[in-house]
């Protein structure tokens, strides 16, 4: 069954949607979507390094994204620069550096589009294994850190005063995001990872009554987006990543319309 490239892509996509749900909720609540962008743009630098030193792409992307998130934390804590300026600087500098490095490696013929927009054909069995191992890691850590992460989201000073390790959790959360970017890159591509994190979460906000419910619903929305996106990608021969994101956006719009209609009736 796993011989079929489409099945492999589908499993990989669904695997990513499972972690994108709760993580995306935290990103939306904490207003970190620009941070997600920064990490995913830095992924291209990771790709360049992986090709240059012939190491695993997912591993290299994770290392670069983790490094970037630590740099963001250090700059935020130790300079007076506003957060969005720091993120803009690192986001575009790392994207540009990645592109420059790739173009310098003239001996390689790199299909840039497959990294930017995702490559449905490129999911190998090893990739699938890495994705599911990453899934398990992210889910286990999220479950373990959920309470302190949520408390820190509501009010970090309050959480800190009442004995929660806010700084440690902030770092852990950023590393989780780095890991997610690394394993999601192959399916949705560098440019659209943040969309897969944020759109399902915002789509289900108005149907949610608690943070946990919102996380669960956004997983379902994400799974649906991946399934619809990949089938339409196969059907109409469109790139996988953009198709998934268009499907997510369609779910968002449908949800908003349904919510408004239901709200009017009651």
């Amino acid at each position, binding site marked *: 069954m796993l011989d079929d490239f489409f099945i492999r892509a589908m499993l990989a996509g669904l695997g990513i949607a499972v972690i994108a749900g709760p993580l995306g909720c935290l990103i939306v609540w904490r207003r970190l979507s620009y941070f997600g962008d920064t990490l995913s743009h830095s992924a291209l630098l990771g790709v360049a390094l992986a090709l240059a030193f012939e190491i695993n792409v997912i591993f290299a992307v994770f290392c670069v994204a983790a490094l970037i998130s630590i740099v963001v934390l250090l700059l935020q804590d130790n300079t007076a620069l506003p957060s969005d300026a720091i993120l803009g600087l690192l986001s575009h500098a790392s994207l540009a550096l990645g592109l420059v490095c790739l173009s310098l490696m003239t001996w390689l013929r790199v299909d840039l589009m497959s990294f930017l927009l995702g490559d449905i054909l490129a999911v190998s069995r090893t990739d699938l294994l890495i994705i599911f191992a990453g899934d398990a890691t992210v889910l286990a850590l999220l479950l373990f850190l959920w309470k302190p992460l*949520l408390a820190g989201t*509501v009010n970090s*000073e309050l959480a*800190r*005063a*009442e004995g929660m390790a806010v700084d440690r959790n902030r770092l852990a959360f950023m590393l989780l995001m780095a890991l997610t970017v690394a394993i999601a890159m192959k399916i949705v591509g560098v440019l659209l990872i943040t969309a897969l994190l944020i759109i399902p*979460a915002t789509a289900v906000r108005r149907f949610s009554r608690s*943070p946990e419910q919102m996380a669960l619903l956004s997983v379902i929305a994400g799974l649906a987006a991946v399934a619809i996106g990949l089938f339409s990608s196969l059907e109409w021969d469109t790139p996988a990543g953009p198709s998934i994101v268009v499907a997510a956006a369609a779910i968002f719009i449908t949800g908003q319309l349904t919510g408004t209609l239901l709200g009017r009736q009651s």
Partner: protein
Amino acid sequence: MRCRLGVKHLQPMCFILFWQIFMNDDQQNDPFLSLSNAGLYRGNRWLVRGVDLEVRRGEIVTLVGPNGSGKTTTARLALGIVKPDEGTVTRAENCQIAYVPQRFEIDWSLPLKVERLMRLTASPTNKAMYDALEATGVAHLANSEVGHLSGGEFQRVLLARALARNPDLLVLDEPVQGVDFAGEVALYQLISKLRDQLNCGILLISHDLHVVMAATDRVVCLNGHICCQGTPQSVSENPEYLSLFGKKAAQTMAVYEHSHDHTHLPDGTVQHADGSISENCHPDDGHHDHSHGSTKPKKPENRDAG
């Protein structure tokens, strides 16, 4: 016979002696929280400096001071949210802390109901949760979304959340901000009742001099440093305090430094020790039988502040 009796009583006597010497000293008098010469330096200036402060079990310590005098900074130092750049801050081991910060926004994107907020940093039982909400008068809001609460309701929910933690040390930063006047009096009464019930130490920040002083054991007057501290009475007579707040405030405070023989009811009337109810609590209306703590003779205009 005599000898037997002596031995029989020796053990309990020793135990009582031991208890008084060691346990009492340890548990009752050792402060939960102590700041010693603590200071915080940010943005090229000392936000506060040289703060010496102690909060003990069963004690309400109130921080007063003008805007920017470092009240909240001192609370953040006390809670360990920031580390002092100078001096030390020590909290007792295993000290359960509860914090009521000033009003803050909860992002619309986060669906959060009151009962979920109550379980944010601890896992109180349902009973403890509803008892706390009941105590602050917002049990009917348990199922409401936090973002839809009014300022006063939110403040009461935050206070309930802190209570449900069953704290040893409770830090309240302007806990009645946005609460209506009747509610304000009731909440301060609740706070001093809690001090007795939970036997916890309370660090209270307020600029609301006249209501707060009624329940406070010790006042710390801040203005970047500690101007003065002591009982409400002694602080109100301190020249530094007078120059900071003016005479009017001092008089307000002095009025409250007396033994309480009457209760202010929510409708504005006053219930006296003899059970009678009157419109006000003027000292010469015949209901009173007490002397004010002030050593100075009371001037007639002081009464209005009561």
